[in-house]
């Protein structure tokens, strides 16, 4: 009788060990997992004086440069970036106002996105900071993400010959990423 009870106990324990279950869970929720990451990265910077400018006419002076931004045109970037914020901080000591243009071009040099930043005049004793934020999202973002380079033009509507001063640019980009299945 006692042996039978022990046998019953053994069988009951084995059944118990193999009767474990998983409940109150939903593993299909893996489909809902979304990584929403916000990355802040420096963008471009420069520090220029009047000698960097080229006269295009009596009342038109310009500097221009181009850099590739290959990562923008990548598949990974275009699939996962849902918004880009640019922040530009121009510190101007030229006694004239300036205008900076940022033209984002694709490989065929077609403009996919463009922004213009008016820069207030300053002087060497009184540096004037002009801050500018551009938010790119939705349809604008689709065009923007086709760009692979940016052309930066800074224009003065007057000659800067023999004018003391500097234009200092600092900028950053905030990339909002959304990674999902």
């Amino acid at each position, binding site marked *: 009788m006692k042996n039978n009870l022990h046998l019953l106990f053994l069988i009951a324990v084995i059944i118990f*060990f193999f009767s474990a279950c998983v409940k109150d869970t939903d593993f299909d929720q*893996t489909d809902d997992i979304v990584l929403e990451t916000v990355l802040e990265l*420096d963008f471009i910077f*420069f520090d220029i004086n009047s000698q960097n400018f*080229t006269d295009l006419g009596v009342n038109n002076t310009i500097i221009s440069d181009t850099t590739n931004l290959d990562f923008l045109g990548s598949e990974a970037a275009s699939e996962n970036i849902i918004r880009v914020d640019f922040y530009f901080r121009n510190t101007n000591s030229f006694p004239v106002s300036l205008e900076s243009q940022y033209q984002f071009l694709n490989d065929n040099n077609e403009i996919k996105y463009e922004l213009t930043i008016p820069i207030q005049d300053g002087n060497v004793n009184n540096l004037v900071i002009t801050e500018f934020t551009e938010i790119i999202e939705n349809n604008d973002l689709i065009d923007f993400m086709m760009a692979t380079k940016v052309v930066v033009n800074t224009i003065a509507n007057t000659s800067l010959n023999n004018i003391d001063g500097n234009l200092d640019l600092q*900028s950053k980009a905030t990339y909002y990423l959304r990674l999902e299945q």
Partner: protein
Amino acid sequence: MKYLLYCIFFFWGFSLFSQNKEVLYGLDETPQALLLNPGTRISNKYHFGIPLISHLHFNGGSSGISAYDIFQNTSVDINTRIRKKISELDGRDFFTASQQLEILNFGWKNKQEFYFSGGVYQEFDFIFYFPKDLAVLAWEGNANYIGKKFDLGEVNTRGDLLMVYHLGATKRWNKKLTIGARAKIYSSLLSFSSTDNSGTFETRISESGNNIYEHVVNANLSINTSGIASLSDLEDPSQATNKILNRAFLSGNLGLGIDLGATYEINEKLTASASFVDLGAIFHTKDIESYTVNGEYTLDGIELLFPPLVSTDTAPPYYDDLIDEIEDAFTVDTVYNSYSQMRPLKIYSSLKYNFGRPVGSDEGCDCLNTGENQKYNQSAGVQFFNMFRPKGPQFAATLFYYRKLSDYLTFKTTYTVDSYSYNNIGLGLVADIKMINFYIVANNLQWYSNFAKAKSVSLQMGLNIIIDENK
């Protein structure tokens, strides 16, 4: 990603905290107790494990998270739960999985009263420490962490698939002391480890004033692999399987180890024991590829230089130059140097108090023997476990109660506390029906009604043939 997550949580479902076999330790009715303490007092004359089923062991888990924590069926968004868990876990939390399959196990007592035992088993052992800083960086980005140094040194993982050939001897030295030792030859089938990393990633307000931020990376990362590089050249998975199986017969990277153990019967009622398991190393000399990354770089964006417009040159390749500069700053090497790797040492110790009904001695079952030969049908005590892992030791303390219900049925129940779990209840049963010895052990039983809530679960079972001295 979905299937990767399924795999991770599958391991959660069938695993336990580290390699602590707290129920099996000291359960002298099973020959497998000799693998946890070669100094176990054993009264068999012979034993033979039924090949491939004498010891099945699944073991793994997570120190700080359960499947239920993430996948519970509630209205709270899963991403909110993941974010909450990332903030709760830290760099010492880990995911672990291990598994053992005994191929062969046998033992016999010679005329000099030495009990020899030997065999072969396959083992898989994996640990991955939670790289909290990298998880935060991946999940949230750096925008809200300006000035924070993300620790790249938190990357710490190790995995081994190996065969172990062993032969041990146990001797009851005198009435009080039983000692034993086991020599082991390890044959590593696959191995990787990345345990010696350092470095940081920081986005900080620019100190140079060039731009708004400086992104500073310094990295000193490495991963050692053996037995893996040659598999990547094979196109057919069956070729890889065959190659791995061939290594099982002592043609992998070899290592040596030893287990030591002792049982000391302080008096009729009190017994102490201790053991060191896997005191050894594997020497990786074949099919090795190690990768290292070292360097430091400070990124502050792309500086435009504005060459004169009249120049016929194209614009400087700022972006390409930047990428080249970053690549040059970090030295990426593949090295083929031999390396050795300590096995994760496990230390057990216990103290038990024997009581209840006398059940005989190794002189027979007449219950007339007293002193250290006397056995009782019940005991209770404490056990301690310590395992050396890449980031330091993992401790566990166990209270146990043992009872021999009859000549053929014994059980042991345990309550284990470790750094991460305060209520791990385990149970083991050993049935000796004539010469057949069957055992089954599991823990974290309190979660059996819903496995998903268990941070760790284990299952060990096996079948042996045992011939006692009095048969």
